[in-house]
């Protein structure tokens, strides 16, 4: 069992995440490790791989690649439907600083966020995110990779590097 899987189970045991979240995270971690098995993971020592899962990552990368039709849109870049290629690199330190901004949100506003999430069908209490969980969450981001392909062939990738 990898360090990430242990962390997910610990978070579940502590009630920080629910069973469904844990299942999704374990699936994500499992598929990530499956991919690694075909890649370079077999060539590096297990200790290095464990270290690389969280602390070694420095940036969150979000890329959007247009489909075969090419870069779409000719008008204002900041209007819907006009964006073609996007490449955003966010330092993990900035994400860490951003997540700590949560403590500045007044409690009343947090309740509004919770009720808005509930309306969308997301049962999540924003108050349950503690500052000590932030490091765990950021470590867990190291195992995350999202690949989405749109109807027009555009590809969205979110990963940590």
């Amino acid at each position, binding site marked *: 069992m990898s360090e990430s899987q242990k962390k997910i189970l610990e978070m579940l045991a502590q009630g920080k995440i629910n069973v469904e979240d844990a299942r999704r995270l374990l699936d994500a971690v499992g598929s990530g490790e499956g991919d690694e098995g075909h890649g370079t993971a077999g060539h590096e020592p297990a200790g290095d791989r464990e270290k690389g899962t969280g602390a070694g990552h*420095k*940036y969150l990368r979000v890329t959007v690649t247009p489909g075969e039709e*090419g*870069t*779409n*849109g*000719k*008008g*204002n*870049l900041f209007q819907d439907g*006009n*964006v*073609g*290629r*996007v*490449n*955003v*690199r*966010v*330092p993990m*330190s*900035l994400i*860490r*600083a*951003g997540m*700590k*901004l949560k*403590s*500045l949100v007044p409690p009343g506003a947090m309740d509004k966020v919770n009720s808005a999430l509930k309306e969308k069908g997301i049962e999540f209490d924003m108050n349950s995110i503690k500052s000590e969980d932030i490091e765990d969450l950021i470590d867990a981001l190291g195992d995350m990779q999202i690949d989405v392909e749109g109807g027009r062939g555009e590809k969205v990738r979110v990963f940590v590097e």
Partner: protein
Amino acid sequence: MSRPPMLMHIRFEKEDRSFGLWLPLFLLLPLALVVLIVLSPLIIIALLVLWPSGWGLWALKVLKAAIVSFWAMRGLEVDVQNSSQHVYVSVV
């Protein structure tokens, strides 16, 4: 301790026109320090006035969060383009 951001590169391209700018953020740091020192008596008075209501602590936290966020911006890169426009922002 990480280094603060030193430069910000902003570039806009629209068809055949382009505009690029290097902002020397490292020059803003001493300037911000001077402004902070000059305004410190006012800041202290404001904090003392606001402290009983709880907003003083909140203002201090906001100040700290703003500094930490600015410090953590090094490495941020945003590159957005379509067939006729291109916006690029990079913090180094």
